[in-house]
């Protein structure tokens, strides 16, 4: 049930959507394709599903080359950002669609559909039309519909992109649990790094139609291979060629040999976290992330003179090494 895209390239007129991309999703994994819009991640997902034909390269699902096959014959469950609900059918009919196409007996369809509706927590909604559901409910229905055909792999294209923040948060947790229960090999496309880190066990970072880096969420955060990955996964300060995470900046009230003088411009309170916007003596700006108690004990306020020291930073462009500014 593994998925592999090998050397896939795809152009739309002059726009290179995918440039010799290789991506693997091992059996049972939940892999996120993460990147900015226009980075090629949705195109790759559609190529895997057979909704788009690559100019070159191969799509291999469970060890079988499926490159030339139409979407009907790929055994792939696809979930769209905007649900793609069949508006003229009830929730029941939507979920039953793939089974009816496969001419399954009515009793088996009924049983399967109600099982799935329970799984996605829509038991009482079988007779409703999609127009009568909330966005989150529609997307859960779409997921049940995709799961009904018992796909070898599940492909989710920005599945929570059209939902509001709170529902999105709930569905992420729910999806994570569902995946642990079902263990269907899944690829999720998202432009939200937090979503990718929260839901998936592997992240493929894509940009400009190429794979930038592949790894576990923590690995990418701690050892980004490029400037782009460091900037995309988590917040970052840039001082010339040097990149520093805001939580790696320490604020002190007294100088020691390696500190830099800075002024506090502004403090932003985000509950547990406090953001301090600073200006260095040479005029460069950066911001630091502290805990609430830290900010309190330092008695930080706008205009205050402080000394910053940088714990950990990265320089790209040269062979990656640890540097101190």
């Amino acid at each position, binding site marked *: 049930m593994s998925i592999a895209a090998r050397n896939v390239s795809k152009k739309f007129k002059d726009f290179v959507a995918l440039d010799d991309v290789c991506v693997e999703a091992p059996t049972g994994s939940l892999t996120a394709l993460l990147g900015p819009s226009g980075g090629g991640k949705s195109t790759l997902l559609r190529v895997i599903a057979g909704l788009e034909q690559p100019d070159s390269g191969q799509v291999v699902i469970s060890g079988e080359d499926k490159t030339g096959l139409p979407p009907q014959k790929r055994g792939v469950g696809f979930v769209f950002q905007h649900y793609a609900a069949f*508006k*003229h059918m009830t929730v029941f009919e939507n979920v039953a669609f793939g089974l009816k*196409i496969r001419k399954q007996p009515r009793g088996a369809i009924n049983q399967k559909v109600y099982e799935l509706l329970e799984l996605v927590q829509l038991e009482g909604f079988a007779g409703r039309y999609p127009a009568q559901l909330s966005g989150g409910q529609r997307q859960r229905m779409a997921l049940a519909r995709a799961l009904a055909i018992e796909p070898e792999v599940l492909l989710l294209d920005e599945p929570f992109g059209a939902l509001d923040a709170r529902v999105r948060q709930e569905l992420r947790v729910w999806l994570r649990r569902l995946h642990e229960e079902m263990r269907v090999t899944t690829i999720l496309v998202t432009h939200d790094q937090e979503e990718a880190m929260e839901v998936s066990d592997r992240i493929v970072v894509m940009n400009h139609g190429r794979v930038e880096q592949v790894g576990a969420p923590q690995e990418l955060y701690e050892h980004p291979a490029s400037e782009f990955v460091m900037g995309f996964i988590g917040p970052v300060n840039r001082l010339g060629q040097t990149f520093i995470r805001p939580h790696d900046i320490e604020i002190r009230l007294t100088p020691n040999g390696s500190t830099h003088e800075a002024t506090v411009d502004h403090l932003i309170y985000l509950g547990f976290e406090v953001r301090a916007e600073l200006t260095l003596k040479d005029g460069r700006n950066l911001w630091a992330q502290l805990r609430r108690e830290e900010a309190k004990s330092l008695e930080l306020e706008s205009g205050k003179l402080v000394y910053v020291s940088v714990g950990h930073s990265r320089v790209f462009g040269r062979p990656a090494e640890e540097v101190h500014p």
Partner: protein
Amino acid sequence: MIYLSLIVLIPLAAVLWQSAKGGAGGFLQQVSNPEAIAALRLTLLASLVVVLINVVSGTLIAWVLVRDSFRGKGFVNALIDLPFALPTIVAGLTLLALYGPKSPLGLNIAYTKAAIIMALLFVTLPFVIRAVQPVLAELDHEMEEAAYSLGASPIASFRRVILPNLLPAILSGTALSFARSVGEFGSIVLITGNVPFKTEVASVYIYGQIQSDNVSGAAAVSVLLLVISLLILLAISGLNRWGTRHDR
């Protein structure tokens, strides 16, 4: 409401009043006239045939205009509205020139029932197309892709996903083209020859009655035509409500 009364309701009432002048007996006598019955029958049958053809061809043409791209598409698209813009008598003249006794195609269907169908098809061409076109263009393409990924062939996806979503538009286009067919006069009067019992449609019959000074006869048939049209429009709008039940 006052405007609607002035423009629509009062004239209709006048026709009703005119037809009721001879009492119920007179009305029945007028509409049971064999020539009137033949004309009404012909009108309704021809309209039905035209509407059925329009449903298929109109949906097909709308499909091509929305989904395919070809050279001159804009021109073809503009051409569709021509029957709207053309005075119907000019349409009749055109058809007579093309399919009449002096047909350059050697195809003489003047004074036959086929000519009625031809004329009606011409004037009702835009209705189904213009009703279906915007709906088809707005139709979520991802619905089709979802159907494909669930195993539906293109034909199955058309039948189970696209068609049900087009149905309300097809029905309303059908209703309009039916209404137009039942009342059409200008394009038919020249090419059919108006032979009683053979090619005389209701509107032409009504015109004939007025010419021969039988106003109440004309009014009676008009009222019957009105009632039949109304019933059919109501039936179609009922179907339409059923077709869009999921939107409420």
